Each structure stands twice: as structure tokens, then as C-alpha cells.
């Protein structure tokens, strides 16, 4: 006999509101349902009511932890629409900020993951080390979370020689902390017992569900937009894309761990090669009538922006496909057959971000029917 154990909409394991209805037999999960939509904010609609420039600020607020990812992707898409190319120095600064934010995001994730399996001491340590990364961001961008560094056709702030020294010292500190994580992953037996062979997503299943980012790379799917479709300064930078074959939580942990090291390497390279020149273009053309499509490798996977222009100073349509939209679908196959105790760490292992995922559902209270608004609905609404 199975009973229902609700995880969410508000639950200590979830950092944002989502609802996981788990059917359990004792401790074992035998079925379930996933429901999102508690955090819908209507950003895509709002984006069509603001100018291209104001939308940078909006894009940055899609997600708290990957803010510069969204603004970079949006800026690049609009730049493609305007047919302009930002200066080299701007591209490098974008890359540096991008990767520094990846460090912050992954360290935050490590902390949350440790917390889910009850390792609060490690959680606090990770977040303490994360402060160094935030220190870098604060020095470079003037802010810690919503960074506001990107603008159309370049960046808004320069990396001064003072900051270069600071970044180097802080990076050394972060690298030492990351090495500590390595020790933790190799030596702690209780930790290994909790993450090894848990929440397995096999490679064929991962390909079928089209998962992206560390979730895909943890299952042996070798994709990374930074390498496959390079943008910003990535064409000039050498880095590896870590891939693990086993598909369990531990592989996803290891992928993220190795990405931390790669990010440090990328930042160092970009700092060394930082070219001179202007930060941003002086004059910007109006976007031409047409559409553009941009993608970047966000910390959770591939992020896609689609912008359609009708020649005015406002986009006609902005479509955002965040990585969590696809990754969330892989949660249920991972959860089935595992125990309740493993559910939080499995949920955390894809690093889900619900607020950027949520889409609207219309409920007709008179007829009592629910309807999800799809892209084709929206398109029909615009054309008719």
C-alpha cells in the first residue's frame, strides 16, 4: 500500500517553491508527480513592454544566482539582431565575470548539497569560501548578486590594475578551498555512502530527456556550449569539458567539482590575455526586423534566448528557455526506486532553479478547467 508524502511547496529541502508529490511505500518511492508554477512572474510578457536596453536589467533578474548569464545571453542575442560585435576587451571581461559567477554558483550548490545530506559544517565552509568569489564580483562589478556589468555592445565597468591583483589573490584562496573539497570527496566515507549509486540517470535516458549542463555531463553526454558554439572570449581559451559516465549523484558532484577547477583556469587565462581597447561601442543601431537566437552555457546547462524584432526599440517577443526547464523533467526517473532519504540530494543534484522555470497556467474558475499557455498559443495571440 502506498501513501503520499508531499515535498513542497514549502519544504526545508527546497530553496524555492515547487511541489513534489511522492508516492511512497514505507521509505521507498514508487511513483510521483512534479508540479511547478508557484513562482511565475510574467517576465517574457514584461520584456515586450520595455526597451531593448531596459530588458538587460529584466533579464538579469530572471534568476538570482545566474544573473550575468542571462544578461550576457540577452545582450549577445540582441547584438546579433543589431549586427554588431562588441570590443575584444569587453568579451574578455564578460568571460571573466561569467566564470567567476560560475564559481559562486557551484560553491553555493556544493553548500546546499552538503546541507541536504546533513553535512552542515561543510555547508558553512563552502559558503564562507564563496565570500571570496563574491568579493571578486564586488570589486569588478560593484555588486555581489545582480551584477549589472553587461550593456548592449560591451560592458559597463573595467577591470582596473588594482582589481587584477585582488582577483589573483582571491583566486588562490578559492583554489585552496576547492582542493579541500577534493579531500572531502575522496576521504569522507559517510558522504560517499550517501551520494554513490544514488539517483542514477543512464546515458540513453539522459539523451532522451534532453538534459543539459552538468546533469547531462554527469551521465556521459558530452555537450557544452562554451566549446561547441563558442561565444565571448571562449574561442581563444583552452579548457576541458569534464564528463563522467556513471550518471549517479556522485558523477554530477564530480563534474561540478572539476568545473570549478576549469573555471579558475579560464579566469586566469583570460586575465593574462586581457586585451586593451575600449569597453563598449559608442553608437548602437536599431535592431533590424527579424529574429535572433542566442545560447550560452549557464551554470546549470544550456540557456537559450530568442528575440524577435519589429524594427522598433522594443522587442516583439522574448523567449527564455532556462536549463532547469529541461533538467526538471529528469527528476522523476531519478527518484523512482530510491528512498525518501535520498530525495533531497537527488533534487539538489540537478541544481534546480524553479523561479526561472515557471510558466503560467490559466484556470477558468467557471468551467473549472486548467490550461497551460504554450508558445503556439502566445504566437497565435500575437498574430491574430
Amino acid at each position, binding site marked *: 500500500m502506498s501513501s503520499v508524502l508531499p515535498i513542497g511547496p514549502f519544504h526545508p529541502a527546497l530553496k524555492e517553491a515547487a511541489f513534489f508529490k511522492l508516492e511512497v511505500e514505507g521509505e521507498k518511492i514508487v511513483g510521483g508527480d512534479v508540479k511547478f508554477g508557484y513562482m511565475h512572474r510574467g517576465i517574457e510578457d514584461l520584456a515586450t513592454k520595455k526597451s531593448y536596453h531596459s530588458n538587460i536589467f529584466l533579464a538579469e533578474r530572471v534568476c538570482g544566482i545566474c544573473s550575468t548569464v542571462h544578461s550576457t545571453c540577452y545582450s549577445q542575442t540582441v547584438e546579433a539582431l543589431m549586427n554588431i560585435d562588441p570590443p575584444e576587451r569587453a568579451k574578455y571581461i564578460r568571460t571573466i565575470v561569467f566564470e567567476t559567477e560560475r564559481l559562486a554558483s557551484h560553491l553555493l550548490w556544493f553548500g546546499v548539497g552538503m546541507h541536504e545530506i546533513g*553535512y552542515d559544517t561543510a555547508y558553512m565552509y563552502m559558503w564562507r569560501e564563496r565570500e571570496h568569489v563574491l568579493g571578486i564580483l564586488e570589486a569588478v562589478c560593484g555588486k555581489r548578486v545582480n551584477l549589472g556589468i553587461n550593456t548592449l555592445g560591451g560592458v559597463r565597468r573595467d577591470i582596473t590594475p588594482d582589481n587584477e591583483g585582488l582577483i589573483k589573490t582571491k583566486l588562490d584562496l578559492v583554489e585552496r578551498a576547492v582542493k579541500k573539497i577534493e579531500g572531502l570527496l575522496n576521504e569522507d566515507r559517510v558522504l560517499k555512502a550517501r551520494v554513490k549509486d544514488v539517483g542514477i540517470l543512464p546515458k540513453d535516458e539522459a539523451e532522451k530527456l534532453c538534459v543539459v549542463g552538468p546533469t547531462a555531463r554527469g551521465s556521459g553526454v558530452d555537450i557544452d556550449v562554451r566549446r561547441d558554439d563558442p561565444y565571448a572570449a571562449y574561442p581563444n581559451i583552452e579548457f576541458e569539458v569534464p564528463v563522467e559516465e556513471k550518471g549517479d549523484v556522485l558523477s554530477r558532484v564530480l563534474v561540478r567539482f572539476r568545473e570549478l577547477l576549469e573555471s579558475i583556469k579560464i579566469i586566469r587565462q583570460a586575465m593574462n590575455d586581457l586585451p586593451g581597447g575600449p569597453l563598449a561601442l559608442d553608437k548602437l543601431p536599431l535592431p533590424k526586423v527579424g529574429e535572433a537566437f542566442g545560447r550560452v552555457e549557464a551554470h546549470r546547462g544550456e540557456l537559450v534566448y530568442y528575440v524577435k524584432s519589429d524594427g522598433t526599440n522594443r522587442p516583439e517577443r522574448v523567449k527564455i528557455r532556462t536549463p532547469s526547464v529541461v533538467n526538471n523533467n529528469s527528476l522523476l526517473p531519478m527518484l523512482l526506486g530510491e528512498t525518501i532519504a535520498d530525495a533531497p540530494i537527488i533534487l539538489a543534484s540537478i541544481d534546480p532553479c524553479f523561479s526561472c522555470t515557471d510558466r503560467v497556467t490559466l484556470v477558468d474558475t467557471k468551467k473549472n478547467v486548467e490550461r497551460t499557455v504554450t508558445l503556439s498559443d502566445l504566437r497565435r495571440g500575437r498574430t491574430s
Partner: protein
Amino acid sequence: MNSILEILVALLVYPGFLFSFAVGGIFYWLYRKVRARFQARRGPPWYQFFVDLIKLFSKESIIPYSAGGSLMVLAPTLSLTSLLLVAAMMPVGSGSLVEFEGDLIVALYFLALPALAMVIAGISSGSPYGSVGSGREVSMMVGYEIPYALSALTVGFSIRSLSLSSIVGYQLENGAFFLKYPLATAAFLLCLLPKISRRPFDAPEADTEIIAGPLTEYSGLLLGLFELANCLKWFVIPAFAVTLFFGGGANIVEFLVKCLGLVLLLSVIDIIHPRYRVDQGFKFFIKWALPLALIDFVRSLILP
């Protein structure tokens, strides 16, 4: 008349209720403070636990519609009473309040009751988190109660007496038992961790998995009583270990210092570990604690 007053004072103030409550509260605070300092946090002030209690006692207790009301009220009282009785039996300093031949067995029973109270609390609260927590508590109990009782009995069988005061008396003359029975001591100390639900064996109350486990539906006064029982645990359970294996104490100061050492040890183990899943925790006790306890138990039977 005078003697009744004395007994009442002994029961309610020293070394009974108020004393063990205050010491437990301080030990609990110490655990939280040490934990916070290890984690680069500041930690609560020493009176945090007491103000929490005042807050809880002044709030309304909500008993859910689906809960078994009387059992839900019974559970915290059961937990609290049994711990207070053990505190009364503990030979602290000059002697204990209640003394009789065989009080070791009775104390072991009463020490198992708080966990049982948790099980009752979880099942009666009518919440899915509560029932999952109760199930976990039961499976952990099966794992740790056997090595716990075995290693406690080792000491009693060794001197052929089941009285706590004679165990302490023997240790005062011949040295503490942890030297004679190190394996049983180790097994006993391992069992203290799930007894006060600390990591790596706190699966029944794992907050990120099942919110608060059996205590999810508790609020107000009833939760306050559970918190009170929790704070008593921080005194009674280490104190029982000190009595059995670390020679008790010739006076109250020595006794408390030994308890303090044990509390710090448990805190550090709690700080440096993540949480075992309940099946892993159960296996751990069957695989490690039980054989350790058995070896010394057999040793105490053959060579007293």
C-alpha cells in the same frame, strides 16, 4: 514533615528536576555554541534555550484534526517523566535519590522510553512526515538498543551486581571500567549518538528530508515539553555513560567535568559528519557496535 520537604527539594531542585534541567540546558547550549564556532558562525547566547522554552510555553498547542489527541499529549510527558526518573536514580556525588538492587535494568528501560515516546508522537500526529520519522526511529532503535543494553549489562555482570551505586563504588576503588572494557565503552558511546539524535545517526529527525520527523505537527506547550526532554537528554544520557564507564564522580564537580568532556566529544562527532541514511545507520550498528559490545559482554561473563 521535615523529611517530606527534604525529599521534595531533592526531587524538584537538587539533584532532581531544576538542577538536571539547568545543566542539560547549559550542555545543549554548549553543543550549539561549539557547533557554531566550528562552522565559523557566532552561535546563540547561553540563555537562548531558556527563552525559546518561555516562548514555546506561552504559545498555543495545536492538535491536528487527524491526530490521536490523547496519545499526542501523552508522548512528551512520557519522554520527560522517564528522563526525570533516570536523573533521580543517577548516583551523583554523595548518592542517588532512589536506590535499589537492579536499578540498572530499570534505568535502561526508562532510557529507552524517550525514543518510544518519539515513535508514539510521530504515529499519533497523523502526518506523513511523522509516520516516516517513527518508522525510522523504530529501525534505529532495533539497531542501537541491543548493543546499548549489552554494553551496559557488561558492567553489571562484571561485578555481579545490577545496582548503579555499587557500580560507581566499585569504580571508585578499582578504576574506571573504560580501561577494563574499552570495546564495550566504544559501543556504548556510539549508541549515545542516536540516543540524543545527533549526526551521523539523526535520520529520524532529518530536517531536509522529513521536516522535523515525529515532531512536525507539534507546537506550543507540547513542543516545549519535547524540547525540555531534549535538554534533559543532554544531561542524563552522558551522565549515565559517565556513571557506568567513567567512574561516576566522588563529588558533583568531578562528575560534571566528566559529563562535559563527553558532551564535547559527542558535539565534535556531530559536527564533522554528514547524515547516514537510516538503513546505513542500522547496518553500522549491527556491523560495528554489536560485535564490539558482544565481545566484552562475553568477556565479562567468563572473567569477571
